[in-house]
């Protein structure tokens, strides 16, 4: 379980805080979607979960361990329990697919024979066994993200952070990657925290959702509860019949709504 308490962060050059007293708790086994527009602070929040970004104040408690108080070495050990995938994939172009997936195992000092077995297993899981010797530049976007996912899962993490992992992919590829994430969550029990600006991502795989705006967490909770709550704008956005965009206070949208026009999400 990840518990975030009163997280705040202001970048030196910015007037507005990127995170403003954000508190959140992510139960084990969840697929937790954090929605928001670009600049809402969701990326900063995600990057705080493994301390790629250090908050100015607040705590991140991972299974009872406060990450912000750890020494460098202890933090590195905790990070091995948190996989991460990225919008830009961030694969190493100097290494083959096989060797890319092996990186976290090398860092964790796993011996070569076991590394071999494990990488084969992971490539099987993501359906890329035939691409083991290919280089990232020879892969499509969807294949690159599969390698990213295999790599993130290599050290058998309990958590997987997804930083807009499908935003650079076409709709069909997005669906297949989301299906893969759902399978991983169900089969391996990995807790997934994802940030996205796409409502459809949350609709299709998340069981928990949160909405961020201007560095603040406006709503958060299990999706069924949000759906049942008639007062919840996030719940309303997630309801399949009413595809209202987030930020429904935008001028003009109430007019459209009045005439029954269903606006596309942005």
């Amino acid at each position: 379980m990840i518990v975030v308490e009163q997280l705040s962060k202001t970048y030196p050059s910015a007037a507005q805080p990127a995170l403003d007293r954000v508190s959140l708790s992510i139960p084990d086994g969840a697929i937790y979607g954090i929605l928001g527009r670009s600049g809402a602070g969701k990326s900063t929040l995600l990057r705080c979960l493994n301390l790629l970004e250090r908050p100015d104040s607040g705590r991140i408690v991972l299974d009872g361990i406060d990450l912000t108080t750890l020494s460098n070495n202890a933090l590195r050990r905790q990070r091995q329990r948190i996989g991460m995938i990225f919008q830009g994939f961030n694969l190493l172009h100097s290494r083959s697919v096989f060797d890319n997936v092996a990186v976290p195992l090398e860092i964790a000092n796993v011996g070569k024979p076991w590394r071999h077995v494990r990488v084969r297993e992971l490539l099987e899981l993501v359906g890329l066994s035939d691409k083991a010797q290919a280089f990232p530049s020879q892969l499509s976007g969807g294949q690159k993200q599969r390698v990213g996912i295999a790599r993130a899962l290599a050290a058998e993490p309990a958590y997987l952070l997804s930083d807009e992992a499908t935003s650079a992919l076409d709709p069909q590829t997005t669906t297949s990657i989301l299906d893969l994430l759902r399978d991983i969550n169900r089969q391996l029990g990995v807790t997934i925290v994802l940030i996205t600006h796409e409502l459809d991502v949350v609709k299709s795989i998340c069981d928990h959702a949160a909405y961020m705006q201007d560095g603040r967490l406006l709503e958060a909770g299990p999706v069924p509860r949000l759906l049942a709550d008639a007062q919840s704008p996030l719940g309303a956005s997630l309801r399949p019949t009413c595809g209202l965009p987030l930020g429904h206070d935008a001028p003009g949208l109430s007019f459209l709504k009045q005439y029954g026009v269903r606006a596309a999400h942005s």
Partner: protein
Amino acid sequence: MNRTIDWDEILQLVLNATGETVYMVLLAGLFTLLIGLPLGVLLFLSRRDGLLPMPRCNAALSGLVNLGRSLPFVVLLIALIPLTRLVVGTTLGSTAAVVPITIGAFPFFARIVENALDEVDTGRIEAILAMGGDIGHVIFKVLLPEALPALLAGVTLTLVMLIGFSSMAGVIGGGGLGDLAIRYGYQRFNNEVMVVTVVVLVILVQGVQSLGDRLVRSLAHRR
């Protein structure tokens, strides 16, 4: 000034001088690599927004590198004579010339390394940090391998520059093709030696450049 051209003698002279030039370039190249590569990595890491931010250390190193690069090489060559005597014990000969050549070249190479590392996508560095990697992992699994084509291109550039530097070593009696050109071509008006020297230098530079280009291409090919 009637004289017969003794091609055997010229060949012998040029062969010896080429050997000395290659010796100076390779030895100075090795030291340039050994000093410049770690220095370039340190320059990159110690930046204010780097992985090991040490702004003061960075400013000091950067100043030193700029100083080394701002002096014309001929001036450096003469100014470093006392240091050369200290390190090698003599100021004459090819081995002695390696000292000023190395000192003239490593700041340049360090800058090339720094720039090559700067081209590596920061997302890849973050990916390694996110999996629990330390600074050593970042250097040896991301920075150096990912920048390898750019680093090799930099080595090529540096080697060509070293050939140029080694030619000036003749000024302090360092031997090599430059020395030959000065003693025979300039001081004795021996045009044959001059022409052969120029041809050999051109072949050396072209050879280094095309070998380097080929290596870079073969690496870039599979990425």
